[in-house]
């Protein structure tokens, strides 16, 4: 804290809010971290206009030692963790996990199709291989940390980004609507007494999957978002490069297509109540996150991409003992109607390299066994490529489960691409996406899935 800022800090005392009183009125259970927070009394400073934001490294370092002791006591190191990676815009599953020796594929993709010698083979007996940009994932597959679930979708597929994303988020039948998301219902059912930070989204929009009766989950971005690193004299560094000033500074890449992250909404909840709760959550969780990300260290080299930085942060939070059970991140740009070949390759490379680094980091930490990463996209793309060097909205597609717990290999059947087997030109599903959710909920997070998903879905033979 530069000396010049100190006086104004003190002059803001009038703004201190009595949080003990607020908490009583809101009838919140008193938690250890909240108590600790109130004692250190960082709050007042953050409401001063001359003191920027809640995440001040100087202040954090003053309190770092104390943080360590107190938060460690309530970390729940034994808990399993789910990381959800949304590939927003509709990922072309057929050019991600590519059928080998398939004439229908070759015919449907005269220009976009990948030739057999380009495809990364995964083993003698497998009838499918990876896009060449997914070398990192192919390696993870070889080491036994990656599962491919083929042909994931749902009956009566919807080809609207928003509706299909909503269906995946709410885990309802395509004809039904729900105001809560599947992860939100997990919070409602299994995490009633948890802090809001049981769910953590990196980004600025809460995913619809988090919508709950009692909204939980926090968003994390450093205040001010992208910022440049300041040199010791408070001036920008001479190289002029865009560098990350704090751990949470996430550089966003340009959105390639029209679809970026897809926002969600909480259920029917009074806006004022929601605002009051959020105000309280801000105070507590921002500090928890900053402390955990300082404590945790990365044991792998991540790509410099936005996604790489996000995965590096999640890894540090896990290593740092954050109590979060569900992490949610999103990579946009998969809506490749035109000029798909280059854009898709870039996206997959960014994704695959980041995920591979994350997995090897978790392995080095010894946390790989308790973490599952699940990818999903609102739909795959049409089998037949279009005239603009792209593909249009489709239906079923493969998804990835990664982590130490998940059984490696292929699950589910690769759907047929023969014209007579397609649904209006699109791949039919073999595995309902809710079977994937049910499997993760039951076998990884250890909760009963039917109260969350509305009914029982067959479990996959993962986590053997």
């Amino acid at each position, binding site marked *: 804290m530069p000396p010049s800022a100190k006086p104004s800090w003190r002059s803001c005392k009038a*703004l201190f809010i009595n949080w003990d009183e607020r908490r009583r009125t809101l009838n919140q259970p008193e938690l250890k971290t909240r108590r600790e927070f109130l004692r250190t009394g960082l709050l007042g400073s953050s*409401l001063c206009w001359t003191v920027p934001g809640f995440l001040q490294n100087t202040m954090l370092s003053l309190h770092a030692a104390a943080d360590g002791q107190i938060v460690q006591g309530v970390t729940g190191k034994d808990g399993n963790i789910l990381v959800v990676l949304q590939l927003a815009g509709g990922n072309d599953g057929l050019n991600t996990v590519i059928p080998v020796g398939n004439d229908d594929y070759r015919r449907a993709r005269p220009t976009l199709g990948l030739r057999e010698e380009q495809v990364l083979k995964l083993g003698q007996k497998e009838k499918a291989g990876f896009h060449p940009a997914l070398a990192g994932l192919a390696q993870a597959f070889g080491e036994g940390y990656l599962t491919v679930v083929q042909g994931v979708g749902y009956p009566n597929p919807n080809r609207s980004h928003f509706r299909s994303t909503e269906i995946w988020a709410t885990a309802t039948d395509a004809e039904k609507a729900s105001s809560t998301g599947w992860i939100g219902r997990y919070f409602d059912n299994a995490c009633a007494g948890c802090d809001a930070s049981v769910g953590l989204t990196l980004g600025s929009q809460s995913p619809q999957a988090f919508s709950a009766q009692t909204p939980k989950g926090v968003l994390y971005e450093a205040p001010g*978002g992208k910022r440049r690193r300041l040199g010791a004299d408070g001036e920008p560094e001479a190289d002029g490069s865009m560098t990350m000033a704090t751990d949470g500074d996430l550089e966003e890449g340009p*959105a390639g297509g029209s679809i970026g992250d897809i*926002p969600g909404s909480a259920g029917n909840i009074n806006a004022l109540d929601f605002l009051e709760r959020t105000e309280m959550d801000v105070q507590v969780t921002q500090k928890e996150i900053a402390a955990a990300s300082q404590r945790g260290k990365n044991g792998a080299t991540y790509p410099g991409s936005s996604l790489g930085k996000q995965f590096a942060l999640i890894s540090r939070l896990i290593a740092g003992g954050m109590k979060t059970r569900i992490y949610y991140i999103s990579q946009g740009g998969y809506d490749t109607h035109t000029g798909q070949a280059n854009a898709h390759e870039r996206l997959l490379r960014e994704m695959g390299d980041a995920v591979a680094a994350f997995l090897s980091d978790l392995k080095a930490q010894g946390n790989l066994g308790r973490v599952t990463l699940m990818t999903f996209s609102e739909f795959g793309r049409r089998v037949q490529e279009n005239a603009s060097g792209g593909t249009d909205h489709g239906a079923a597609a493969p998804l990835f489960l990664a982590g130490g717990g998940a059984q490696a290999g292929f699950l589910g059947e690769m759907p047929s691409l023969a014209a007579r087997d397609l649904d209006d030109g699109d791949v039919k599903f073999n595995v309902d996406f809710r079977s994937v959710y049910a499997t993760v909920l039951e076998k990884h997070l250890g909760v009963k899935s039917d109260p969350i998903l509305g009914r029982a879905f067959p479990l996959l033979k993962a986590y053997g």
Partner: protein
Amino acid sequence: MAIATLPASAWDKEKAGVLLQRAGFGGTPQEVEALAKMQPWQAADSLLGPPEIPHVDPPPSILKPAIGDKLRTDRNRLKLMDPKVREDKQREINRALKAEQEKRLTDLRGWWFQRMADPAKAAREKVVLFLHGHFATSEEKVRNPAVLYQQNRLFREKALGSWSDLVLGVAKDPAMLNYLDGAKSRSEHPNENFARELFELFTLGEGHYTEKDIQEAARAFTGWSVRLRSKPGEVMDEETHMPSFVNRPAWHDGKPKRVFGKTGNFDGEDVVRLTLQQPAASHWITGKLWRFYTGTPPQAELHKELVAAWEENQGLLRPFLLAIWTHPEFYSLGSTRNRVKSPVEWLVGLCRQLERPLPAPAIASEITAQLGQKLFAPPNVKGWDGGITWINTASLQRRYEYAGWLVGGTRGARNLTGMDLGRLAVQSGLVEIPIPTIEGETKDEKTLKKEFAQKRNAAARQAREVLAISPAPLAPLAGSAERQDPDRLVAHLSTRLLPGETAPPELQARFKKAAGTAKPLNDAAVRQTVLAIVQSPLYQLG
């Protein structure tokens, strides 16, 4: 079915404050008082101003890009260059073009903010803001500020007119044709993107059309495209300088189509007409407008009333908006407590209520972007979800932080912390970027990068001063009478800043604590009180 209207006897200052807040961007006690003296309908009508389409001068940089046009004509000559040199030259050009584009977009945003903050224009601009979210189109795909300006102008001109004119205008709008791929859609491969969103998001809502309707409608729209720029020899005035709508008959699918159960040799105009004849059409737009202005979807009975009012007015926006704004439900507590201000409303409203100038365009744009609403860059074609999705742990803390800036100013050691000043300097035109020429010397990437970084850093230092936010003037907020008594100051400021709201006791206590007990209140105490009110959950509603 007659629509309910608020009786004149129920009209008071509190309701006038709600009207000013919701129909526009809020304002001063004097403005509220003036509205309170009118009849409700007259008050609402006065906000919309005269019926004529206003004359508008666009921001100068939109009409005349310094670099863009020259380079486009040079592009062909690039192809003849040595590949190694060409790559460097291309990078140099791209950097310059990108910098200019950022600057033009920032000018455009700042220009729009100014219009919103103008009391005579605010209500129409608010409709434009609604339309921008409704017919969401993003610069991230369109990549042309002039085209986005054109769309913004279309919204402004048609904001109070006929809905069908507006929808048709949007269907032919170059930005939309680009954003939803209509411009490239040809009979051999009709692109379904626009047809789908026309039905799903713009006019009907899900469940009121079939996949087949989309496919057939997409065929009808083929041929509606964009001509990028004027032909040689044409006068480069505002109209011809910009990309324009063009109908390409050779691309059009002239065969019969079947849309909504009717068969014919339809074109785009036919599809828009058939779509708006669907019963779902009145239901959709009336519900969306009600929700935009009140924060909650209309209950079934109310919705029937709204649809009747819409149809009675034949889909004219002005009389329908007046019907909404004079409806008793518009002022009910259930509706006032449930509407979260969007970041743009929050920023413009706060400046208006504090009677302070808007921050510099680059800062104003960055503030709303950081709060989740980057103008001309909605997250996707669905626009911003709004409501409580504006609020999350990250955005709420930023609202409080930026409120501090706007109340207390940002001068001092840690001025504008967290802002990328280098980027804001580029956006503000503080970094001079030489116009690259094909003939000129070609510098390698490393040199260029270094030069640019040096300039940027110098400009960033300058930006810290140039873009600093001044403290809000206190004179309009507290007179000597209010300064005599903390309770009176809190009451006075609450009425000004929280129209139609009564702060619950715990919040009152928070405000009073900020005001302190010393009499008379000094400047610091007044500022703290203002800050306590705007840094509260209640202030986020409106």
